[in-house]
């Protein structure tokens, strides 16, 4: 009896400690970024590209990296979405969800999910050479798109797998084709989940540094074509943090703040959209 009570208490304590660590980490990260980044924040930071003495602590901002990251995140998300939808529709609606082929695709995606992003960067670099592509936004979009693909596809897949088979049957029995059923019924039911998947993908795309070093490169200018290199916020943070000049290091925290705010805005707006689209979903 004593032992069982002890067990119960111990586990209770473990839960509390674990929760505290998680919430504490979040709190400290946000606090660090705010405390260190906020003083270095200025209108210039978000409205100007680096000029002459930016990397020596003089004027300029990281607009190049903000725009670059948004372009890259958007491009990679769209690229990945265009590839993910056919995959999940195929394995859940055209073939049976439990078939061997579907399981094979799932395992493949899970393995891809585990590959470190620097390997994607190297792979992207090999692809670029094979296709004669230079360091550019396009090369980055393709590489990061592939990096994001397993996250997006598997998240959507898990959402669609929870949808009762009878819902698809209801649509099919009205004489709808599989494609109509997939796009007009299943995807609609899965829409809140698909939105979450896109958000997760976008967050990963905007935040990844290793895969863009060799593929997207870095530039002080805002790209005007997908064939030009582009700056990204994670790389901007990386370069600024490595600087011996204090003002530049502070700007790294300001850049982190900007990146965090971007992700926050997307996160919140997706929640709002989720609510808006969730009302028709069958529970």
């Amino acid at each position: 009896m004593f032992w069982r009570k002890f067990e119960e208490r111990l586990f209770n304590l473990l839960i509390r400690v674990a929760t505290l660590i998680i919430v504490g980490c979040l709190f400290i990260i946000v606090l660090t970024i705010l405390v260190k980044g906020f003083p270095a924040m200025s209108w210039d930071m978000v409205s100007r590209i680096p000029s002459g003495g930016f990397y020596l602590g003089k004027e300029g901002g990281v607009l190049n990296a903000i725009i670059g990251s948004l372009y890259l995140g958007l491009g990679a998300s769209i690229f990945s979405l265009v590839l993910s939808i056919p995959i999940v529709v195929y394995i859940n609606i055209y073939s049976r969800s439990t078939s061997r082929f579907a399981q094979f695709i799932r395992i493949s995606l899970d393995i891809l999910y585990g590959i470190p992003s620097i390997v994607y960067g190297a792979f992207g670099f090999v692809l670029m050479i094979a296709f004669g592509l230079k360091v550019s936004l396009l090369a980055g979009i393709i590489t990061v798109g592939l990096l994001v693909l397993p996250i997006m596809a598997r998240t959507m897949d898990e959402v669609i797998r929870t949808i009762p088979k009878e819902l698809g049957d209801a649509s099919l029995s009205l004489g709808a084709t599989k494609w109509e059923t997939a796009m007009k019924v299943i995807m609609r039911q899965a829409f809140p989940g698909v939105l979450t998947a896109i958000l997760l993908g976008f967050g990963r795309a905007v935040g990844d540094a290793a895969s863009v070093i060799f593929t997207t490169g870095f530039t002080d200018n805002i790209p005007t074509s997908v064939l030009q290199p582009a700056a990204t916020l994670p790389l901007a943070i990386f370069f600024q943090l490595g600087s011996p000049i204090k003002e530049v290091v502070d700007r790294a925290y300001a850049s982190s703040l900007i990146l965090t705010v971007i992700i926050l805005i997307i996160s919140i707006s997706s929640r709002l959209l989720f609510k808006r689209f969730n009302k028709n979903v069958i529970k």
Partner: protein
Amino acid sequence: MKTSTSTSFKNNFPLSLQETEVAEEKVIPLGGLKPHISVRNLNISYGSQRILKNVSIDIPNKKITAIIGPSGCGKTTLLKTFNRLIESADGINIDGEVLVDGENIYGNDVEVTHIRKKMGLLSQRPMPLPMSIFDNIAYGMRIHGIRKKALLQEKVEHYLRQASLWEEVKDRLHHPATKLSIGQQQRLCLARGLAVEPEIILGDEPTSALDPISSQRIEEKFVELKKDYTVIMVTHILRQARRIADYIIFMWLGEIVEHGPAQELLENPKEEMTREYVKGVIS
């Protein structure tokens, strides 16, 4: 499937009835009734398990046919062969013919959507599509090419009225269908099925999830609808079959034991097993 009752009855009844009899002979003429669906030598197996064994049956036109029998006897499987929904199950083997209006729906060049359009399906649990009440009804019409808004509106009202739901929902046509009560949802599903102008209504225990009053309304609808439609319903409620069925098919372990006009079968069953089932000795 193998409950204690079914095992004990296995001893009393041969597993395969009238094994020596040729399948064709089991089809008793409908007594002047015109068949709408004719099943010939239908065998369905799932892996090594045989679900339907040599089923041959005629379903009378514009009557209510009830398929009764203990659970696991293949009632639902038989129903799902009529609109080919059975195909979507993994590893299913279908052998035999199902003729709807004289056309073998398992023929090589038969368009499955065209077969399904002929039949409306009511499932055990009502499955509204994840959209508004209006769009639920309009969905089927839209995929079959009706685009004009005025026409859609007119038809949506017509079919909602036909399912006795119009008065309850006319002020909230654009609300999510999931907000309706479960009984209303089932009538919505009926209206949705009627909207694609089928000839046949299939019901897979359509009242099993409903309260008594909602069940009664569905039953009344079925009686009304048989003027224009052939109604086929699977039910495990004998009293329901007694109340509304014109024709009854009694199944046991994947075979048709007996079928005939409702009154005749219920009051004067020819087979010992039917008698036991009707008396409530087996269920």
